[in-house]
């Protein structure tokens, strides 16, 4: 089934009209946050969809829209089709129902999203930091993350070097010297 057909089938089952975006690259469907767990369950258990392989569950920070997007990539070994679902959570207090009961792989993916973005997943049996130390302050993959001065006595910049700016890298083109025609 093509992603559009899968989206149509999911929309029928949920009883809603789903937003389906087709830009450059892969198309994706946008699911409202309150129907997230239901949509995931239908995607997994519906025999025509049978999306049993959770490839990845990750977050994308959108500070301009004030939200953190959670993106899920699914695949079905039986039917050999893939599907991408997005949902949005509020950036100030991000939380989303956990899908770890549907795909056990989601437990660690949700832990990682919690660690790096600060998104809360009620229902996840083991929600704690996974990649960073337990006493780390902040969620690094947010766009406005500021690095600490030192961690447990180790300085974060090498002494003698200036601190590198941690924002998005702006590449300015070098100005071309004007040739004066004489």
């Amino acid at each position: 089934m093509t992603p559009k057909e899968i989206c149509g089938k999911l929309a029928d089952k949920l009883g809603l009209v789903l937003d389906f975006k087709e830009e450059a690259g892969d198309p994706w469907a946008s699911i409202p946050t309150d129907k997230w767990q239901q949509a995931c369950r239908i995607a997994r258990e519906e025999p025509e969809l049978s999306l049993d392989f959770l490839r990845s569950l990750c977050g994308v920070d959108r500070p301009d829209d004030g939200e953190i997007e959670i993106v899920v990539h699914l695949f079905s070994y039986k039917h050999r089709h893939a599907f991408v679902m997005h949902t949005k959570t509020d950036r100030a207090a991000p939380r989303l129902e956990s899908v770890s009961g549907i795909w056990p792989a989601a437990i660690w993916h949700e832990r990682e999203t919690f660690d790096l973005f600060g998104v809360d997943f009620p229902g996840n049996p083991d929600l704690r930091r996974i990649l960073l130390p337990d006493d780390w302050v902040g969620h690094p993959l947010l766009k406005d993350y500021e690095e600490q001065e030192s961690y447990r006595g180790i300085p974060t910049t090498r002494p003698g070097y200036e601190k590198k700016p941690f924002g998005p890298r702006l590449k300015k083109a070098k100005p071309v010297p004007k040739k004066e025609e004489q």
Partner: protein
Amino acid sequence: MSPIIERGPEGSFAVGPIDGLLNLARKHSLWYLLFGTACCAIELMQTGGPRTDADRFGMVFRSTPRQADVLVLAGTITYKMASRIRLLYDQMAEPKYVIAMGSCANTGGLFQNSYAVVKGGDLFLPVDVYIPGCPPRPESLCEGLMLIQQKMEREPWLKKAWGKYKSDKEDPMPTEGCDPLR
């Protein structure tokens, strides 16, 4: 201070100061800790492998820090790992040496923009030899180990107080290490 070794018809003998004889024995039995975090660990394993054989210098790997002389910081050091490495270093018995192998252990390597990488092993350990490379070739690591051997040759054992040998390197974290819980 190296002893003079002569081979005569009645046998061979070495003449030299006691320091020199002791160091001759020590430098040909330099045991390194089997420890590596990232890519440089593979090159460390290849150095102990068949082609560049570290065993011909008398260097064998030991798994426990209590039996090791040299700690080779092979690979990137993260903040989470730094306190454990300091614990390993503290468990090693004097006289002990540290080699920073590869760019990541020297100064943080190509991860200058990273929030979770310690910018150099010498921010929390006293390093003796720095080996550049990413990863350094096994021959470079051998050269580094030979530099440690040369350093060992020059060490004045008996000039220090009898029974107490303290290396005169600057330790960036002398008493508490980098973990406030210790």
